[in-house]
């Protein structure tokens, strides 16, 4: 069976200019050769940090951006050549406060977009009613959107994206900024979409979200897919290794570089936590880097030191860190 969504060596460069009188053109390569396929009924996740190229990739697939090079197909049709055909069969939902008419009620927003998406006038009322129930907004649909919480807006975004019952859905960070309870409800709605047979491309930078929802994940870093597989396959990549976490109070960049040079260390990441930082060091299977790490941190004010088994998040951090190091080299 042919894939529903195909990205083939997609590239996208943005050109920006700086200066008023002496204008200088600057090129930023946001996507640098992204390729993947999504099968019918599959929920595929693009996981990556901010600025990795997830949204740019999704915007090329939904016909809003022309790729600089490469090709993208949805349901077998080229997204540049057959943009109109593709638009009739896809839904697009993004995260954040924007993308809705604030002064209109949820109902009026949905009615307007139902017209734009070509929903038959006689079936509009029933379809909107179904969707309001699906996303849990029934009873609140006559209120203006400006009074909605972030979670309610997100649910309205999902209802909007489903108005014309598209077989393919693109969800761009749909739970961003939503409180934990709201995010959990949204994840349940997304899981329901997959259960209903929709093919879904989800972008997120929440590891647990990708783990909980996705059949397969592509990890994106610096505009490239650096790993692809099921959540289990990605976890297995680092399952045999070891992770050392050291709480430190102020650490210089050259110390972090020194840790990276330790034999057997695969990645080093520094996370800020209140007054302190936590240095997360991952090492190859069979290595015990704690002694060497502590030796290189001699003179640094240390807190708690723990050793644990790696998680999916460590796999993700390792992949993203590796890519960053390669690009900066």
């Amino acid at each position, binding site marked *: 069976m042919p894939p529903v969504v195909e990205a083939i060596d997609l590239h996208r460069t943005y050109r920006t200019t700086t200066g008023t009188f002496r204008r200088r053109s600057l090129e930023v390569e946001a996507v640098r050769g992204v390729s993947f396929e999504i099968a019918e009924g599959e929920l595929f996740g693009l996981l990556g940090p901010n600025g990795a190229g997830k949204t740019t990739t999704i915007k090329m697939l939904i016909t*809003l*951006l022309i790729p600089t090079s490469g090709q993208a197909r949805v349901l077998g049709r080229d997204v540049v050549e057959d943009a109109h055909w593709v638009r009739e069969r896809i839904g*697009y939902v993004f995260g954040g406060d*924007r993308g809705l*008419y604030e002064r209109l009620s949820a109902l009026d927003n949905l009615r307007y*977009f139902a*017209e734009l*998406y070509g929903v038959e006038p006689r079936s509009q009322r029933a379809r909107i009613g179904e969707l309001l129930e699906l996303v849990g907004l029934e009873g609140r649909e006559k209120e203006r959107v400006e009074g909605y919480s972030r979670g309610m807006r997100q649910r309205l975004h999902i209802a909007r994206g489903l108005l014309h019952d598209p077989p393919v859905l693109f969800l761009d960070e749909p739970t961003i900024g939503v409180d934990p309870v709201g995010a959990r409800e949204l994840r349940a709605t997304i899981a329901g979409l997959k259960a209903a047979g929709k093919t879904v491309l989800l972008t997120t930078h929440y590891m647990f979200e990708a783990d909980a929802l996705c059949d397969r994940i592509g990890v994106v870093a610096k505009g490239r897919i650096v790993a692809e597989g099921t959540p289990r396959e990605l976890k297995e990549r680092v399952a045999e290794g070891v992770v050392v976490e050291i709480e430190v109070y102020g650490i210089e960049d050259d110390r972090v570089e020194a840790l990276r040079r330790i034999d057997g260390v695969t990645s080093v990441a520094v996370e800020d936590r209140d007054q302190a930082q936590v240095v997360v060091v991952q090492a190859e299977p069979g290595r015990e880097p704690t002694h060497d790490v502590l030796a290189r941190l001699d003179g640094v004010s240390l807190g708690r030191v723990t050793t644990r088994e790696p998680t999916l998040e460590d796999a993700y951090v390792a992949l993203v860190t590796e890519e960053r190091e390669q690009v900066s080299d």
Partner: protein
Amino acid sequence: MLSQSAFDGLLAILWPLFFGTVAFFMFRAGGDPDTLVYASLGAAVMGVWTATSVSAGSALQRQRWHGTLELLVAAPTHFSLTLLSMTVATSTIGVYCMAGTLFWGRVVFGIELPLEEPLALAVAIPATIVSIGLLGFLLSVTFARYRTAWTLGAMLEYPVWLIGGFLVPLTLFPGWVRPISWALAPTWGMNAIRDAATGSGSAWPDVAMCVVLGAAYTATGVLLTNRILFAARQRATLSLT
């Protein structure tokens, strides 16, 4: 559709009355009752043009601020149709502008509007309003590509008052202005409305020009939309505010 603010509504009601009042005071000083009719009709069409030129530009800019422009472009409905419905809808505010100004002139300033050719007037008014809306559509197509082009709508407001012959006859302007004013549907619409109201000439040729120009704006706008949207998708300007 996008605004349900009572304040916006109040402004839309008062704005044409200001235009009318200023024009009536200016022309009343001349003491000629015919020029008051001229001013009354001119002020009425001024309101239509202002509602369209300013609203057409700001409507699309508002889509950018709402973050909905990308959704409109990515929707299956052709973007030119979405844009066309938006701009023609704003020009229908012009129906009120016209009626409000004429009513204000009658009640407050005692200006009686002659109705020499009622049928021609009944056709000329909607033809003028729709063709002004279509000119707004053509302008707004460029706003999809250039973020600050909405200022062009505001900038064009006053020049078109003049070169459309709303308040001052075109014969008072230098010869090079006339070809520009002939390319504008409001000029022909204004002539048609005046001719139909006062019976100073046949309104039908002007109505025909108004319709032809409106059709030309639509065809040009639809053709431009595809090219401009492709450029905007290439240059990634749709998501910018």
